[in-house]
Structure formats: C-alpha cells, structure tokens
C-alpha cells in the first residue's frame, strides 16, 4: 500500500471546473437573499423613524444597562454593511472551495443566516424602543437575542436545501492499475464497516459545554444556556462517524445519523491511504472543507482513507485500518465501471 500524494494533485483534475457555475449561481442568490434581509430591516427602521428616539440604545454592558448609542439610520447602515462583509466572506469560500455540494450548501446557508441574523438584531433592538423619548433605560431582552440567533436558522436551512446536489458524474477512466485492490472472487460480496472516533473532540466538547453552562449559571442568564445546548448538539453530531464501503460505494455518516455523505462507487477515481494532520491539512477537527475545496471528516491525526472523486472532488475520513477499505473501494469502483 503506497501512501497517496497530497490530494488535489493533477490526477483528479480532469473536468475539475464543472462545479464553478454551480458555485457562482448558489453564491449569487444566497448573497442576494442575505442582503435582502438586511435591506428589509433597514426599510423597517425607516418606517419606524418617527417613533424612535434620535439616539437609540445599540449596545449593553454586562449588567444590562445600555452603554452604546447611535442613530437608527446608523444602526441600519451597520447591519447592511456587516451583512455585505459576512456574505462576501461566505461567497469567497463558496466560489473558491465549493467543489462539493456540501460546501456550497454550508456557505449559502451562512450567507442567508448572516443577513437574517442582522435583520433580527436590528428589529429586536428597535422594537422595544418605539415611542420612547429617551433610550437610556431600555433593557436588553435575552429572549430577543436568543430568537435572533435561532430564527435565522430556518431560512438558512431552507437556502441550504435549495442548493442543488452534485449531479451524477460517473468516472470515464478505469481505476488506475497501481491502485490497491481487494482479492474478491467473481460474485463474492463484501462490506467494510468501521467506526471513526478518537481525537480531542469528546474532551473538548465536554469542557466547552461545562464552561458555558457554568458561565450561564454564574450570570443567572437562562438564555445563555442556549450556548452549551448548541455546542452539545454540534459535538454530538461530530465526535463519531460510521464508515461503510460496500458495492454502492463509500458512506460516511455521523453516529447521530446526520450529517452524512455518500460517494457512489462509479464516481470513485481512486481510493488510497493518506496521513492527515487536522490543523495543517483541514484547519481543524470535525466536518471540514480545506482551502482548496477538499472535504474531510477529520477526528484525529494519522491514517485516513482518501477518495479522489470525479469533478476534482476529494473526500477523506480518519479511520483505523484504511488500507483494507481503500482496496475494497477500488475493487467496488472497478465493478461499477
């Protein structure tokens, strides 16, 4: 078993650019949708302009007293500008790294969430200040803040669902001769199943949840409990995955059933073993998209199964004993040709 060269090497480059129009389309409409949310909030501010104090409270100190003030127009401008910057960031990621549909979904969802979040912040901040002459006594509602974080998840989820998945792209060329194969007799069936676990995920998750719960308890702010809850949900979906290689191809799914991904056997260009350094190669742990668009389920450093896929895509998962999985996947890819 040879160690694969770093993924994204020229071998998988044929037809690499087919995803770019799809990425451009997804980033265009999701950025537009995000901006429309912010502009709608600005329109609401305009509609309320006669009812709002000249200087509205826009920032609160830890004790709940407002300590920052600005004009309603300035708040609307800040919201629109911040949305533009956030959407721009997501769009750059989607346009440069969006080879996989999952990446385009995450970035489109991010754009929409940003705009809806800024809109919810503006509306949630200003609604209680209507009809006040002086904003110096207005409180900050934890529930409004909570709603501003959570409600935008709905349009973001819809946007992610609207991004079309990758169309079927069967590989045209045969599996390379030097790729390892599993020795299967004609008609023999085989499946490779393993749990991908390990790494710092579980420990980091437990500490993060404990600390944010403690912070919520110490500040007696119940809405703060949403932070450990969201963190717990994130870590539950990210700390363990099942990896399956069978005649259908490669299936990697979170132990929490979601998220997951499937690489059909006929889209496998080549499977191999690689060494993964989470921070250097993927910028962290969990479900990752690297700077060049490679997708990875990265739970620990070391041995990983690497699948080069049609359309210039690549997927890696850190799992023990990947040599056997790579060999079987190459054999299944060959059978699917």
């Amino acid at each position: 078993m040879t160690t694969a060269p770093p993924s994204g090497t020229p071998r998988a480059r044929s037809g690499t650019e087919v995803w770019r129009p799809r990425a451009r389309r997804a980033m265009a409409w999701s950025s537009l949708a995000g901006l429309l949310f912010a502009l709608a909030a600005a329109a609401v501010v305009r509609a309320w302009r006669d009812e709002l104090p000249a200087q509205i409270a826009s920032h609160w100190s830890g004790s709940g007293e407002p300590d920052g003030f600005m004009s309603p127009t300035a708040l609307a401008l800040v919201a629109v500008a911040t949305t533009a910057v956030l959407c721009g960031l997501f769009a750059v990621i989607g346009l440069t790294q969006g080879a996989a549909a999952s990446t385009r979904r995450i970035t489109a969802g991010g754009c929409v969430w940003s705009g809806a979040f800024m809109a919810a912040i503006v509306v949630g901040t200003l609604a209680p200040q209507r009809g006040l002459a002086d904003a110096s006594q207005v409180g900050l509602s934890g529930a409004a803040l909570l709603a501003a974080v959570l409600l935008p998840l709905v349009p973001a989820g819809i946007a992610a669902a609207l991004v079309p998945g990758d169309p079927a792209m069967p590989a045209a060329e045969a599996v390379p001769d030097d790729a390892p194969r599993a020795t299967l007799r004609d008609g023999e069936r085989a499946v490779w199943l393993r749990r991908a676990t390990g790494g710092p995920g579980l420990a980091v998750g437990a500490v993060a949840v404990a600390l944010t719960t403690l912070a919520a308890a110490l500040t007696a702010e119940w809405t703060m409990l949403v932070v450990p809850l969201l963190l717990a949900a994130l870590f539950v979906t990210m700390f363990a995955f099942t990896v399956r290689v069978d005649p259908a191809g490669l299936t990697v799914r979170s132990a929490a059933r979601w998220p997951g991904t499937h690489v059909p056997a006929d889209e496998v260009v080549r499977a191999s073993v690689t060494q993964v350094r989470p921070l250097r190669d993927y910028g962290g742990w969990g479900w990752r998209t690297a700077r060049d668009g490679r997708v990875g389920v990265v739970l620990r450093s070391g041995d990983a199964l690497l699948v080069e896929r049609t359309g210039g895509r690549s997927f890696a998962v850190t799992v023990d004993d990947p040599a056997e999985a790579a060999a079987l996947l190459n054999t299944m890819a060959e059978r699917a040709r």
Partner: protein
Amino acid sequence: MWRIDPASDEPLYAQLVAQVRLGVAHGTLRPGERLPAARELAASLELNMHTVLRAYQVLRDDGTLELRRGRGAVVASTATDLTDVERAVAELAAAARRAGLSVQTTTTLVTEAMHR
C-alpha cells in the same frame, strides 16, 4: 471486511460465523467490540436479515458474542483467546508441508487427535 461468497458450498450464515471466529482468533475483533447491526450488514451483503441474526445466535450460543437489547452484538469478554492454537496450527501446517502430507491426510490426523 465481511465477505459472502454465494457460490460457495458453505451456508451463508456459516460463512459469517467463520469470519467472526477468525476475527476473534486473529485479534482483529477485540472483546467488547460491537459488531455491525444485523440490518446494516444484511443490506450491504444483500442477505436476508435473518441469515445474519442466525449467525449471531450461533455465535452467542458458543459464547463468542453477547447479544444485548439496544446494544446489538458485542464480542464477549470470555471469547476464547486462540493465539496459542493459531501458532500451533501454523507450526503443524509447516511440518505437514515439510513431510509432504496432503491437506486431507493432515486434516485426518487433526480429527483423530481431537477425538482421542
């Protein structure tokens, strides 16, 4: 890796049983390790789920597996360590080859020794 050869004379469930026993013998399946859910294994190998469940039951009856509701099939902590047997079999095979014995003759010798 789990394999099924439908062309083999060995019944399908027995092929699974043999693989689990070999896995435990070789140490690739360790005590406490969870086997795949019968449904998942059956789907991937295009088997009837009852074929997989039958294999798991045979393995539970001989003490290789523990079947627990909700946890599925787990390699028993009492699963026999076959390392010594594996080593002896390897030596036996080498000695039989040196002596020019056929597989049948060697198997007969082993069968006879087991019945002694």
